[in-house]
């Protein structure tokens, strides 16, 4: 579904992505772990070209990622994205947030888009918040709305860029539950996160990044019980003992 080959990216002098080769099969749930600054968010953001790359090839559903323009917009419509800071449209109600892109981008009739929007809000458990503005919701509710907004486009793959990092601890689970549900239904997902519980529970595959490189690529079980590289051992040592 997603294929990256020999992808390189620099931020000035910083080499953030070093020869990334990655293939995510349809229906697979891939969790990307790594210390901060390891390039995992950047990796996630290159897949729908929110970050352009210096060289290499990225394919989504067999199509090479086009340069800026209408083609790219069309491809982005098929790739759902959930951000760390939610990024719900602040001047639109929750239901408008969910129905807006189907109406404007997919040209779905308004009534139909809102009906489907309500179903999705129902599913993430915030249908009763439909007429509120994002700022009136808790972080967990906002992130669930953001997931519903991405799902409204019926994406082929979902990207999650640290979806729970900005949440209060008691709200993390309500978001992870929605994500676990999606994973069970067979959605193709690439999740950048620090939630080890989610990685163990829902991931088919764990990728460990450090200094812009993919250091390990294995199943959650073998990664958590028997990490091969020193960098992964060091990382796990730091997060699992605190």
């Amino acid at each position, binding site marked *: 579904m997603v294929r990256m080959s020999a992808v390189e990216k620099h931020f000035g002098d910083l080499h953030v992505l070093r020869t990334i080769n990655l293939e995510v099969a349809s229906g697979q749930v891939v969790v990307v772990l790594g210390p901060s600054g390891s390039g995992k968010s950047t990796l996630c953001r290159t897949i*729908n070209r*929110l970050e352009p790359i210096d060289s290499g090839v990225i394919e989504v559903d067999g199509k090479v990622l086009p340069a*800026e323009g*209408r083609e790219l*917009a*069309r491809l*982005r*419509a*098929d*790739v*759902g*994205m959930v*951000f760390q*800071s*939610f*990024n*719900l*449209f*602040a*001047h639109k109600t929750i239901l408008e947030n969910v129905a*807006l*892109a189907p109406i*404007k*981008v997919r040209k779905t009739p308004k009534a139909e888009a809102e009906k489907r929007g309500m179903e999705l809000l129902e599913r993430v458990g915030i249908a009763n918040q439909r007429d509120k*503005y994002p*700022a009136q919701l808790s972080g967990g509710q906002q992130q669930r709305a*953001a997931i519903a*907004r*991405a799902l409204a*486009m019926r994406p082929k793959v979902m990207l999650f860029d640290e979806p729970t990092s900005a949440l209060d601890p008691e709200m993390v689970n309500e978001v992870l539950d929605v994500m676990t549900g999606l994973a069970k239904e067979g959605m193709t997902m690439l999740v950048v996160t620090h939630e080890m519980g989610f990685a163990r529970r829902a991931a088919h595959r764990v990728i460990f990044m450090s200094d812009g490189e993919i250091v390990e690529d294995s199943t959650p079980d073998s990664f958590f019980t028997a990490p091969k590289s020193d960098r992964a051992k060091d990382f796990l040592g730091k997060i699992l003992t605190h």
Partner: protein
Amino acid sequence: MNVLLDNLDLYGRAFLGTIELFLVAAVGSLVLGAIVAAMRVSPVPILRTFGMLYVNLIRNTPLTLVLFFFAFAYPRLEIVDLSFFTRACIGLILYTAAFVCEVLRSGINTVPVGQAEASRALGFGFNQTLTTIVMPQAVRAVVPPLTNVQIALLKNTTIASGFSVFQAGGIYQELSENGYNVLVGLLWIALGFLILVVPLTLLQRNLDRRWSVAT
């Protein structure tokens, strides 16, 4: 009081002229200002440069000069024959749009980058992102300075006297020709402008209150 009562018709016609000029120029400058602001934030370098040049050229030119250009120089170019009123409107629109553009651009800068990113990630193009996501939020943030620009425009309409467009700035000439006390006449004009500004101020208050709930 006599100055006003004797010349009520004169004042009425003059302020009607002011209001007409203002309404056309207000709408025109908001539209053109938004377009130039869009150019200045667009990903196309040529458009950005054009927007930058436009703003810096027009903003640094005295309005009198802009209007004099359209009053006296433009007809010599013999492009399209336009009425005085139309030319006055064009001058005011071109001038005010530069200020509207900069106010809107500062509004655009207040909208978090994440809003545009989310919109692009959903498949919106540049124009859709700007018109449906960024601009509406930018305008909300700049209602007071945008009102300032429009109030300045209202008062700038008086410079259109140079065009023989009859408006409030031209009243005193006729008063003085007819031997009235011009000082008193001018005070009435000032009061007239104060009254004209009231609806703008009320509109600003109303918009500020309505939109403060939403975000």
